[in-house]
């Protein structure tokens, strides 16, 4: 068991990238709010959680509740996914604004620690209120049938499997299908039990042969497999990040946001409506979390609980700090780094058995190591803050 398998390294890096892109989306919300308000919005993970529930309820409303898809194959269209994404983003955007207005605005002129404690309070409030009102046990999952691309994947081959192996697998597959048809027919014909059992065994062996040869081919192929849905997830994330970059760099609102981030009081003196800028910042940050939540629940197939936001929330926060909190490219970079480090630790499990269980701990070790040498984060400025 020991020893590293380098043929799966590219795949593991891609796994990490995919996971990291979600962390990055959440991290953006932390970093943007910190940028304008110098506030760690601890309730951000809970906004993420509510976004995943928004996606769940939308999927039910679209006719994909567990009862209505039980035992049948229901056709879906990409439109359903877009509707879920938009609903999640809108719901989260609104929730973000409500939280800001009700919880943080009254604290704006108090000591910063008061806002911080409020943030923790809001976070716990949403978790446990969610526990009262949201469906949670057993953890509901969004039906995979809503994803029309669930069986498609994109393969980037670096080195294909030997042709003989592929041929062998294809022959075995054809044989297995044939044998299955024969066996099913025999069952319907009502053959004697002993004869059926022999046929079943032969059929089973044919199926095993086919499935193991198939897996063999896919493990001999060195390359990367990305399920179509996850590729879509990555592209959506990149698109949203570019959109964010455009908004922040090229629009009037974005310029106002940058001004407020640079100096809150001076920006206000220059006639910028800081209240509106803060509201917009919360809205955008929360909407990004909503997009991440929808994809996390639908494409990555995560069952939902009111505590769903805790782990990704903490990791995204770490990602934001790692990249340099307040720095937008830093949050993206930090998120992807966290995802990749986490997956690599699982990969290294082959060398050091048991290491995989410490993957979260290793992520924090990376954080500490980075902060020791660059206290401002990887891309952040390391100016000393007077507290």
């Amino acid at each position, binding site marked *: 068991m020991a020893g590293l*398998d380098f043929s799966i390294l590219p795949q593991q890096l891609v796994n990490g990238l*995919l996971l990291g892109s979600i962390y990055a989306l959440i991290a953006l919300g932390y970093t943007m709010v910190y940028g304008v308000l110098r506030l*760690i919005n601890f309730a951000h993970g809970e906004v993420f959680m509510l976004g995943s529930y928004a996606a769940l309820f939308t999927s039910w409303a679209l006719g994909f509740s567990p009862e209505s898809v039980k035992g049948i194959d229901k056709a879906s269209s990409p439109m359903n996914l877009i509707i879920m994404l938009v609903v999640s983003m809108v719901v989260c955007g609104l929730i973000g604004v409500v939280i800001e207005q009700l919880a943080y605005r009254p604290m704006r002129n108090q000591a910063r620690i008061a806002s911080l404690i409020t943030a923790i309070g809001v976070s716990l409030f949403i978790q446990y209120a969610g526990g009262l009102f949201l469906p949670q046990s057993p953890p509901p999952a969004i039906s995979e049938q809503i994803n029309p691309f669930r069986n498609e994947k994109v393969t980037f081959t670096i080195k294909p499997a030997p042709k003989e192996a592929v041929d062998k697998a294809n022959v075995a597959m054809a044989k297995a299908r044939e044998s299955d048809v024969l066996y099913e027919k025999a069952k319907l014909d009502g053959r004697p039990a002993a004869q059926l059992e022999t046929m079943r065994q032969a059929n089973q062996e044919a199926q095993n042969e086919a499935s*193991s040869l198939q*897996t063999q081919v896919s493990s001999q192929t060195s390359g990367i497999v990305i399920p179509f849905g996850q590729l879509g997830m990555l592209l959506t994330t990149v698109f949203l990040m570019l959109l964010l970059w455009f908004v922040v760099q090229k629009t009037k609102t974005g310029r106002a946001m940058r001004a407020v981030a640079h100096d809150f009081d001076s920006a206000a003196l220059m006639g910028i409506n800081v209240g509106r800028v803060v509201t917009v910042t919360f809205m955008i940050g929360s909407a990004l979390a909503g997009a991440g939540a929808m994809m996390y629940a639908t494409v990555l*197939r995560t069952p939902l609980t009111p505590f769903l936001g805790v*782990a990704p929330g903490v990791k995204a926060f770490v990602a934001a700090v790692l990249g340099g909190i307040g720095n937008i490219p830093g949050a993206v970079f930090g998120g992807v780094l966290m995802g990749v480090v986490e997956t690599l630790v699982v990969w290294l499990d082959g060398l050091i058995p048991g290491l995989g*269980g410490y993957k979260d701990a290793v992520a924090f070790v990376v954080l500490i190591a980075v902060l020791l040498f660059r206290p401002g984060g990887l891309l952040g400025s390391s100016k000393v803050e007077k507290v």
Partner: protein
Amino acid sequence: MLLATAALVLGLAGGCTPPSGTTGGTTASTTAGSTSGDPGTTPGTKRPDPTSDGATIGETINIGLVASQSGEQKPWGDDNIKGSQMAVDEVNKAGGINGKQIKLLVGDSQSAPEQGKSAALKLIADGIVGLLGEVASGITQQMAQVSKDAGIPIVAIGATRTDLADIGSNFFRVCYNDDFQGAVMAKFAWDYLKLKEVALMTDAKLPYSVGLSNSFRTSYEALGGKIVGEEKYQTTETQFSGYLSNLKAKNPAGVFLSGYFTQVGPIVSQMRQAGITVPVMGGDGWDSSDLITSGGEAIVGGFFCNHYNSKETRPEVQKFLADWKTKYGGEPGTTMGALGYDGAKLMIDAIKRAMDKGGTKSRDITAAIEDTENFPGVSGTITLKGFAGNPSKSALIVKVTKTGFVFEKSYTPEELK
């Protein structure tokens, strides 16, 4: 400032992780292997006796039940309570035990070992003479400890982890144990599915899962099979792509997943996405119709070991299902309905036998449970006498289909010898 907030977040994360029902009690020692040919018994080990006589049987007979009324394992807890309550109501309606009515006191374990322990302590303080529960082995471990200290007999409903029976001579269960279950699945994989190389996926935080994986490994290797790899995840995880890429490189012909349905569904679903198409198998932790929702198309065709099947024609099963339908409507969603019913019925039967012999204390009830022979349960005939708490019972293997679980094959303890 930054480090301070980071530390704060860490504290926060630790403080508000959901009750997962899995923490604590991760000692990995099992008796797997020592009993591979003889699953019903744990020979050679003398189980420690409780020192206390326990509670006295009062005017009303109080029986305690700890079950997960909230948290991840709620589907099991709900069915367990319904089943046990049905048994109690049935006996009360027929006049109780020698004229005395029975009261079922229920405590919520919240799917967590620590909560299960406090629930059991509270029930004991309330004056129960016998304790029922739990479904999860991690929770039962805690309950067995406190009930041994109090001298109260405990009948576990679905806790299959093998070494639980070593805690005390007051511990019994109505389900088989993991030594048997692992051996059954190993034989099934080797003989029936003809798989030569299998990989394991274990929930490292669940005592149940660790024990079952070990037992499967021992039996499967003894049959001549090869375990090509084992990936260990943690209950709270939701993304398994890293583990699955590792698993795929080992090229297994089948995968045995010993965890609970709450994780198995998502894992198998992600497994198919990663391009692993081989057959999947598991233990009774898979038993919930929610497995089909979370596992989707990928879980269809999987096999797992279960306690009984609602299609059986035995009169006990048919009567149980008819009564359930009248009382609650429909069919129980998990087998814990039947096991909860059996546990309560077995406890009541033992209390009656103890009282008939003039017994008044919990110690007498413990002795009566130990004497149980050929008790006709819904989940099969249960004999505990001489088996050190572990009943000798058959196991059924069911296949997952799109609409439910279908019987595939059954194994009796004799068939495994």
